[in-house]
């Protein structure tokens, strides 16, 4: 009840344009200290207070944040904008923003974040909301038919080849770079991954990698531990850190019970997901395929020859095939959304590769029932790693080979080149983008269900999260899995080449046939490689090689 009252108050307050000054009226006291409306007098606050304040909106453990919370966060984060833009400076400017409506997040979240910005600057933003499944097609078709009708776009880094590669994006001005403090980005998001052909276009609002999520209750369960030993398995009953162990545990768990329910091991999404499903095979394969001495793992950079049918990838596919029978019955029809949200967060399965938002969702989302029993780590490694140049499996002196999969690299906000001619519009568009990619606002976004993960060094300050209400052990464990993935020296970076999702999409079709038992792993992988060669030839091999190298900063 109190919370509802609080939301209503927020809604009323934020609707007033003069919200900034003195909005913390008499009602504050009634709402209690935890909501602390005093934060509306933001400029006076020291940075850390502001951040702490922000993280208490609405507070961890009270369910998903609402519209009013987003607006409040947007209001609190307005400081850097005020330093560079005078009030009403953009009056009369209209911008069109294209992005996702992903379960009323993303664009809706941005609306909330940007409402106070609009009120302050006087600009107006029109919104194009796309369902995620339409996103790629709509973007490509707009570009191809010359119907780009948006000034700002929320876009995944893998599409940079299609947009920046065609000169459609506006280059980031220096003041934006300062405003968003780009030096704070985690290492892998800096150049070259943060740039395209040496220029910066992206305001990162997200960092993406797959990490390893597991159920702590499984690996502390005494019955399972006893059974594990009884069946003569090697080593103690513990969280696997190599894929070899993941395989063993998954097979072991078939037919076991935990808490009266069927136990399951690792969850593979066996159904395609508009290209996104391929990342999950990638997460299994990187430890085998990404050799520390070689930046490439998906293609040969010099020839664009696919590596997807080399022994490392085939072994990953075979691993999936070996455990299909140990997974839940309808797994052949499970896509990553199913494995993540309908299975893992809902309590089925004990191990999962996913983007980091499963972790923040585990605690803060309404969908989760496993908040207290999830643990995190970087993706499992492998005892041996395939060396593409020699064709041998190497065993490294340093121990198992880990290669976290930087899948998707993250969402960014981009300004389109069509605003370049109009300096006011240009400034307005970049100011909006910078607001969304701000240092403080992004902390909030990574702490609450937003679809975005931590991506700045400043996001890994544990006390801030604890102050927001996160359990210290939980959040330390979670952030470590993220930070260790991002900063891993052997991270597998996704090639940002045009049409990368075409490759994934074709691969999903062929993988579906393999998983349905129509081909063995090697034949299926050869089919994928053949299909990829066709795509490369169609898009233009020389171009692809050049752009691939550009994306690697070579």
């Amino acid at each position, binding site marked *: 009840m109190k919370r*509802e009252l609080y*939301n*209503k108050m927020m*809604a*009323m307050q*934020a*609707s007033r344009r003069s919200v900034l000054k003195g909005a913390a009226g008499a009602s504050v006291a009634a709402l209690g200290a935890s909501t602390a409306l005093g934060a509306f007098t933001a400029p006076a606050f020291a940075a850390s207070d502001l951040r702490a304040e922000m993280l208490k909106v609405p507070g961890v453990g009270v369910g998903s944040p*609402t*519209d*009013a919370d987003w*607006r409040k966060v947007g209001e609190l984060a307005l400081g850097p904008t005020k330093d560079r833009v005078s009030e009403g400076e953009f009056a009369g400017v209209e911008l*069109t923003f*294209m992005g*996702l*409506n*992903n*379960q*009323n*997040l993303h664009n*809706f979240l941005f*609306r*909330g974040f940007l409402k106070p910005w609009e009120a302050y600057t006087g600009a107006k933003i*029109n*919104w*194009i*909301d*796309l*369902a*995620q*499944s*339409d996103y790629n*097609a*709509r973007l490509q*078709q*707009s570009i*191809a*038919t*010359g*119907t780009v*009708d*948006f000034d700002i776009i929320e876009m995944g880094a893998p599409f940079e080849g299609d947009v920046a590669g065609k000169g459609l994006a506006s280059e980031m001005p220096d003041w934006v770079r300062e405003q968003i403090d780009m030096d704070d980005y985690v290492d892998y998001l800096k150049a070259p991954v943060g740039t395209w052909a040496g220029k910066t276009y992206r305001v990162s609002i997200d960092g993406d990698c797959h990490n390893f999520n597991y159920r702590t209750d499984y690996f502390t369960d005494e019955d399972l531990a006893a059974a594990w030993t009884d069946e003569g398995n090697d080593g103690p009953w513990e969280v696997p850190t190599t894929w070899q162990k993941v395989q063993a545990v998954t097979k072991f768990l078939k037919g076991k019970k935990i808490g009266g329910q069927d136990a399951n091991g690792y969850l593979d999404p066996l159904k395609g997901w508009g290209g*996104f499903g391929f990342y999950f095979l990638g997460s299994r394969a990187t430890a085998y395929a990404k050799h520390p001495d070689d930046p490439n793992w998906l293609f040969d950079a010099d020839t664009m020859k696919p590596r997807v049918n080399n022994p490392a990838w085939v072994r990953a596919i075979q691993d999936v095939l070996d455990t299909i029978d140990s997974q839940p019955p309808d797994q052949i029809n499970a896509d*990553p*959304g199913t494995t*993540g*949200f*309908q299975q893992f*967060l*809902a*309590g089925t399965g004990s191990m999962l590769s996913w*983007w980091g*938002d499963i972790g923040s*969702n585990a605690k803060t*989302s*309404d*969908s*989760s*029932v496993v908040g207290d029993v999830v643990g995190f780590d970087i993706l499992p490694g492998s005892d041996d790693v395939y060396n593409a140049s020699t064709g041998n499996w190497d065993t490294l002196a340093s121990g198992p080979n880990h290669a976290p999969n930087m899948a998707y690299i993250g969402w960014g906000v981009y300004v389109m080149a069509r605003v370049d001619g109009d300096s006011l519009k240009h400034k307005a568009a970049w100011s909006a983008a910078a607001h969304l990619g701000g240092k403080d606002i992004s902390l909030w976004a990574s702490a609450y*269900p937003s*679809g975005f993960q931590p991506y700045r060094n400043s996001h890994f300050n544990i006390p801030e999260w604890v102050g927001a209400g996160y359990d210290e052990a939980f959040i330390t464990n979670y952030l470590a899995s993220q930070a260790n993935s991002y900063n891993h020296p052997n991270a597998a970076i996704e090639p940002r080449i045009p049409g990368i999702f075409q490759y994934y999409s074709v691969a999903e079709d062929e993988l579906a046939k393999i998983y349905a038992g129509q081909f063995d792993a090697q034949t299926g992988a050869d089919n994928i490689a053949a299909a990829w060669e066709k795509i490369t030839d169609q898009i233009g091999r020389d171009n692809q090689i050049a752009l691939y190298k550009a994306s690697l900063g070579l």
Partner: protein
Amino acid sequence: MAITFDDKYAESKANRPPNYALMRVLIYGALLTWTFVALFPLYWTLSTSFKSAVDVTQGNLIPWIDFQPNWKGWRSLGLSPDTIFGISTPRDEFIGRFINSIITSVGSSMLALILGSLAAYGLSRFTYKFGFMRNDDILFFFISQLILPPVVLALPFLVLYKFLALLDTYPGMIFIYTLTVLPIVIWIMRDQFNTIPRELDEAALVDGLSHWGVFFRIIVPIAMPGMVAAFILSLILTWNEYYFAALLTSTNAKTLPVMVASQTGSQGISWWTMAALSTAAIAPLAIVGIMLERYIIKGLTAGAVK
């Protein structure tokens, strides 16, 4: 199947066949079975909009017994009792799209009904020769417009609408939706007009009415129920259209189905929100259906009014 005719003759009790009672049981048994089949998924959708995550994944069925209903789905749209008076971006979005959906679907269904009825009457009554095309060919020409998967019309329409400045406009959406339902209206209405005896037309013509006079004064009133039914079917189809809506609209003419589809994505799925949206989207259609049900019955049945 035999049931029907037994019924028809059962009007006078004296005529009741010996197995009358058994027949009644069978009829109502079948009716109730199918009612369950038809309504259970809708009940499931409606109840899901009041469930929290656990209740969805556990498949709980009965409110207050299996699960404690809450306003979750509706709150996420700003339509629950506690949020209805607050500010809500999703609700603004929902209402805007809702209105757009009404404008485009009603507009296109009306246009299709007008164009389609005229064409259907012509094809039903007169013999045309249009180059090599006869009546059947013209009819086939219309229905062949239905066949192409809308996906591949994406680029052509994008280009066409860009040239004509129809992207993201009501007229643009109305035109393309009209195109998609026009063939259906023509086929349905031609069947309708075919069942109206031509003697009616001829008598009116003898009385001195023109063909258009006959159409508007005699035929339309008789066929009105059928037209209403065709209208409803068109309305439903255009109301739920997705591909073109996703492609050809941006900020002005955006419609509801895209928002429904947006409830899934890389952050899983908001069951409750999607259920609430689906329920809210079906509601106006259901109301139209209930209001115009008598037309659906007599509907499409010009003959009944003879």
